């Protein structure tokens, strides 16, 4: 363990450490706390300059319900869901297939194909933007949710493949070899033997991709034009325009937009971190 555990040091140091923890956390999350404090106070407080003091009135419920009542926030939330969930399903399903092929079969193109997925995963979005718009236009799905989902799913397949391939590569090879000797078909091996084993990887990817797509801003801006189809990330920016000077509502809306990924993170923390680091340290 490095640094040396504080339990082994003097009582004074232990106490200092335990006091320093909450202080450091407070400073670290100060911007977030401040915006939370703004979101629970009435507008009159902000106008009179009481931005950081004790709220004159606890207006949390009013503010948050006002966000839903006065704006399309609910619509934006639903739109994000409709974009996010299919993307997660499609990209992970495809990555199970490609990852399996690249991890299990030893053929000449295995490594070059793998590198193709990895490299594509890192390109800047801007170099894809115009051709993807053009392509969606030709397929007559520009400015529709399926159009955006198709792109997201294709792009995320790159990262998911990187992750899946490394995960399957770490499984014991003998398992597959012995099934083959038994005469089990290639697709049966995949379906009955490998798929049950990659469940942890699927969980990790699901949490990660959910967060990535939920937080996506660029592609939604580029691929969707109609206000009725916008996801929450783009939505709160337009709310920002609607609610000029209504900081209590803007901050409430921003915090609401962050709730689902944060909840996902806390519920699935183990998978989330495994996802971030396993895909990473192995890659």
């Amino acid at each position, binding site marked *: *363990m490095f640094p040396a555990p504080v339990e082994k040091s003097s009582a004074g140091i232990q106490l200092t450490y335990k006091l320093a923890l909450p202080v450091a956390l407070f400073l670290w999350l100060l911007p977030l706390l401040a915006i939370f404090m703004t979101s629970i106070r009435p507008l009159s407080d902000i106008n009179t300059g009481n931005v950081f003091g004790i709220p004159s009135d606890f207006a949390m419920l009013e503010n948050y319900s006002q966000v839903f009542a006065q704006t399309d926030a609910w619509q934006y939330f639903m739109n994000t869901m409709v974009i996010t969930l299919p993307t997660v399903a499609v990209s992970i399903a495809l990555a199970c297939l490609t990852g399996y092929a690249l991890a299990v079969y030893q053929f000449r193109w295995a490594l070059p194909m793998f590198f193709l997925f990895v490299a594509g995963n890192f390109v*800047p979005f801007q170099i894809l933007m115009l051709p993807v718009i053009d392509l969606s236009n030709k397929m007559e799905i520009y400015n529709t949710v399926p159009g955006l989902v198709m792109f997201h799913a*294709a792009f995320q397949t790159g990262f998911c493949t990187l992750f899946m391939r490394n995960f399957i590569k770490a499984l014991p090879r003998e398992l597959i070899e012995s099934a083959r000797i038994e005469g089990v078909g290639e697709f049966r091996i995949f379906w009955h033997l490998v798929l049950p084993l990659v469940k942890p990887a699927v969980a990790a990817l699901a949490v990660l991709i959910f967060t990535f797509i939920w937080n996506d801003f660029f592609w939604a801006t580029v691929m969707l034009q109609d206000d009725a189809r916008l996801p929450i990330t783009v939505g709160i920016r337009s709310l920002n325009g609607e609610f000029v000077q209504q900081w209590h509502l803007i901050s409430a809306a921003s915090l609401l937009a962050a709730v689902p990924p944060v909840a996902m993170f806390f519920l699935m923390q183990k998978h989330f971190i495994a996802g971030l680091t396993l895909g990473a340290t192995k890659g």
Partner: protein
Amino acid sequence: MASTASLRANRYQTASTTVALSAIVLIIALIGMFTFDVSWMVDNLGFTKRVDARVPSFFARFSCLIIALGAAFICFTNTSLYKRNKLTYAPWIFLFIGTAFFLIYVIIPIFQSISYSFTKWDGLYDINGFWTGEWVGLRNYVQLLDDPNFYTSLWNNILWLVLYMLAVPAGLGIALFLNQTVGGIRIYKSLFFFPFVISQVVVGLIFAWTYNPEFGLLSEVWGFFFCEQTTNIMGNLTTTCTVDPPSILGDPKYATYGIIAAGLWPQIAYCMILYLTGLNNVSPDQIEAGRLDNAKGWKMLWHIILPQLKPATFIAVVVTVIGALRSFDMVATMTQGGPFGSTNVLAYYMFDQAVGEGVGRYGYGSAIATVLFAIMLIYISYFLWRMYQDEKEGN
């Protein structure tokens, strides 16, 4: 004996009926996919608007595609060609859909973008579906060399790259601070990681508000040091400052730094989590050995811990570089490139030139994107090279 021999022969034979049937289904599905048309739906199923019909007709075509793929799969796996060479063809069957999808949406567009960069085009086609642009050779790139906004963006990208790197040591610092086992430490770790989970748009809004010179958090802190509140005779509260609080996002000198500082917040959290996992895997034996050799503090960190954290450092650097070059969301939410174009980065400037209001310079935008891609390519090649080395060792 005879029956097993015939069975074995059978195993490699084409199942003619199945192949023929699935081939027919495949052809019908393909015809359906390509002939299906939005206008057909509008005419026959009573959709009023052309736009309305696009989604259902997409799903109709998509279902045709799935049927076609299924039929092709059944057709091919029943031929003797596949049965005799399973191990040669099976990986390509597994790869087919994912790869095709990825090529169409990611790999091919890269080359298309590069080719757009040699044209002058506004993204439109004429009524017959013909391309309306013209080839201009290297003119877009020559124009870039004379564009002060391009230089600002490039310079800001370099600033982002350099300053964003601070996330790596800062993340390591926090990870070292948190790598303890006192009660409740797990909750502290996840709360420290918090900023990474929040959307960059929300982070941008939070910081735009923090920087607000009238009532933001920063002005509050500023007021604590430089301002004095007095109540005048009328009983009104007035604030006088020796130095006025800076308007960070409104001042071309500071705006980019303000955005980078906001961007560092989630990025430090990301690096921290990478290092925390790395520290978990540091071998305790080596630490003990180091302690016996009287290595302590910095010496221990530098000679024993950091070498073992190399994989974590590598990933932290890679994700930070990519994050820096992809810095779009923050710029878009906090300043939209302003004031006076001073916070443009290549990613945002490209967007602005290509699809910004009333601009539509596809060719010029693509040239900017190509430059950005070229910069990224250096890192991508390095990353792939490192991966290749690892793979060679692994096998």
